[in-house]
């Protein structure tokens, strides 16, 4: 590209960027556009990973501008001098973002969501939601071989009867290859990118640095606690042996007739960095939707997804914190496969208790108690301290999350109005920066958003209350024999959010 075309393109980009920026006073918009341009124009030290530097495209710049806009709103009422200072921090923050190895994708997608709302169609939004997961760089086969030598002292082709060199799916911390065991079974082999744990630690350190100069004031302690929570859960995910043992626990809580399949783990071919499980035949969400499935099938899968989630939540108090659509396998015989249990979070007794109280208050329609619990879970002492606006908005999100609990009969997750109301409230909360709350809510929110994104796109319906009553043991003595046998001391019921 010549210098002249580069210059011209720069001007066009700036104009397009300005056009797409948040509507606020002209001077501030212009400054923000300049800021983003100046960061994006900087050449990275190297571009060996295609994903290394993603601020170049116009879309990425718009995304960045929104992130910047969002961050800036944290000190919107500051005077001019403060504002200039904050923009220096902002610039540093955007540059730091470009150097992140693992979290950047998720942060950029968050910006994209903020940027495209509310103009984006709900369907586009639903596509983005579950994409809020983390990404590791791809590995070539030579690297896979070296990981195998480290983990098993053998090459993949020595360990397996056959092993596909190309990965067939990306996993949050690596990638998945198809292989066949010497005994004939087809398996999925998940392999972790070496050293990903230290990348996660470095990213989180950067995030802390990045956020420290912002005027988060009283919320800073909460932000630190949340970042520690994120780090803990992500690092736990790097231990595939722990995941294998959790997958086994989940597998034991379903019987084959239920139509929910948790793949079997092969411990002899698994280690901390490699996880070998049964390979499930089936398609992912995109492919299923392309085949124009009948409403009956959509409903069936929605039913199964709800049952699976509820079972895990009520039996084991575990949340699937990574609702990646790639984790659902729609099998040809109408069964639902659940794969990848790496990113999970078990609720503590205290967290569980709070959830139980929220759900009970909701079902009793006890508004005063609901308010008290919303204040409590937002870590405020009183409604006055929390402030009306925050209380109302957080309440709106929680009530939306719990809406299916209050609906008799068939619940339609594909309803556009329902979905949009939720997104509306969520984006508003994010834009306002009302982020204070219990660290565990990072995962409950991520889970609810991701799962709702999937069932919205599926346009699926199910009798939510009926499933809830059965799985929580609240069906007044009509609990099925299997359920009763499986869980004599039924845990108290709970809500998603």
């Amino acid at each position, binding site marked *: 590209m010549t210098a002249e075309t580069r210059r011209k*393109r720069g001007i066009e980009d700036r104009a397009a960027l300005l056009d797409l920026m948040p509507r606020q006073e002209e001077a501030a918009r212009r400054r923000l556009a300049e800021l983003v341009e100046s960061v994006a124009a900087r050449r*990275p030290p190297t571009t060996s990973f*295609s994903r290394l530097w993603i601020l170049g*495209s116009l879309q990425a710049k718009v995304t960045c501008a929104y992130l910047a806009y969002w961050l800036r709103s944290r000190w919107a009422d500051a005077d001019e001098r403060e504002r200039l200072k904050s923009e220096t921090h902002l610039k540093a923050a955007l540059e730091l973002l470009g150097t992140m190895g693992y979290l950047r994708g998720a942060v950029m997608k968050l910006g994209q969501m903020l940027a495209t709302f509310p103009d984006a169609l709900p369907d586009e939004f639903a596509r983005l939601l579950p994409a809020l997961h983390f990404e590791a760089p791809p590995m070539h086969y*030579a690297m896979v071989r070296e990981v195998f030598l*480290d983990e098993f002292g053998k090459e993949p082709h020595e360990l397996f009867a056959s092993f596909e060199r190309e990965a067939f799916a990306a996993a949050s911390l690596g990638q998945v290859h198809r292989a066949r065991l010497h005994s004939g079974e087809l398996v999925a082999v998940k392999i972790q990118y070496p*050293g990903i744990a*230290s990348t996660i630690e470095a990213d989180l350190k950067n995030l802390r640095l990045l956020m420290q100069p912002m005027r988060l004031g009283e919320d800073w302690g909460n932000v630190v606690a949340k970042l520690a929570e994120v780090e803990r859960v992500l690092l736990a995910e790097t231990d595939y042996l722990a995941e294998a043992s959790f997958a086994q626990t989940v597998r034991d809580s379903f019987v084959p007739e239920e139509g929910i399949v948790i793949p079997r783990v092969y411990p002899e071919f698994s280690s901390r960095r490699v996880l070998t499980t049964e390979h499930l035949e089936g398609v992912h969400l995109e492919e299923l939707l392309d085949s124009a499935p009948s409403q009956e099938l959509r409903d069936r899968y929605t039913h199964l997804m709800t049952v699976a989630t509820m079972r895990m939540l009520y039996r084991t108090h575990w949340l699937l914190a990574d609702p990646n659509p790639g984790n659902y396998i729609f099998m040809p015989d109408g069964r639902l496969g659940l794969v990848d249990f790496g990113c999970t979070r078990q609720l503590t007794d205290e967290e569980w208790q709070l959830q139980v109280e929220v759900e009970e208050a909701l079902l009793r329609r006890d508004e005063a108690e609901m308010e008290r619990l919303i204040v409590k879970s937002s870590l405020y002492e009183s409604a006055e301290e929390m402030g009306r606006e925050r209380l109302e908005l957080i309440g709106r999100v929680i009530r939306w999350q719990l809406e299916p609990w209050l609906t008799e009969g068939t619940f339609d997750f594909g309803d556009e109005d329902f979905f949009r109301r939720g997104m509306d409230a969520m984006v508003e909360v994010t834009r306002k920066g009302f982020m204070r709350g219990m660290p565990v809510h990072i995962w409950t929110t991520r889970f609810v958003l991701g799962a709702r994104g999937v069932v919205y796109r599926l346009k699926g319906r199910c009798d939510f209350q009926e499933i809830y009553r059965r799985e929580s043991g609240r069906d007044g003595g009509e609990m099925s024999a299997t359920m009763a046998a499986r869980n004599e001391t039924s845990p108290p019921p709970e809500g998603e959010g």
Partner: protein
Amino acid sequence: MRISEQAKQLCRARILDKAAELFAARGFDQTTTRDIALAAGVAAGTMFNYFPSKETMAMTMVNEALARGREEFLTRLDGSESLEEELFLLIGTELRRLRPLRPFLGPVLERSLSPFPRKSVCPEGETARQEHLECVRQIMLRHGFAATPEDVAATIYWSLYLGILASWTGDQSENQESSRALIDYAIRTFVQMISGVTQGGDHDC
């Protein structure tokens, strides 16, 4: 009486074995040539006929390990590998062979492979460099990179490789997996550089 060639080889191997044990147990700098001679049961004078210094001993071990690694590397190829993959396999296989020596390699490599001008160049260090670079040259030839100015490419490559060695020798992570990510990154950087691909920060997202 003349010692047979076989006996010489055995003596040489015994000295290297004992030296490796002592280096690993006490550290390279804390081990003296006297300690090694004593442990190997040879007179100091005899030992110097085999190895003029403990650096030479250590670098001989390194070169032998690297050579075995390169032989093994060739058997691991099936012809379908990309340039990145071949380089990755080469380094990976060499380092795996070098792994038993890792506990004492830091000071050895620092002295013998330093790219800065020195009064006395360690001949074994020079051998290590030339043999490794020759293998890299063969790989690049196989992938059609004959046209790249060899001295420039070799210098860039060697700098990256020394960086990898330095990181790997001190890598505290399990199986040195942090260095594995570094090797991946360094090789991609190198291949992109010699491919003449110029990417700015403003496209190719």
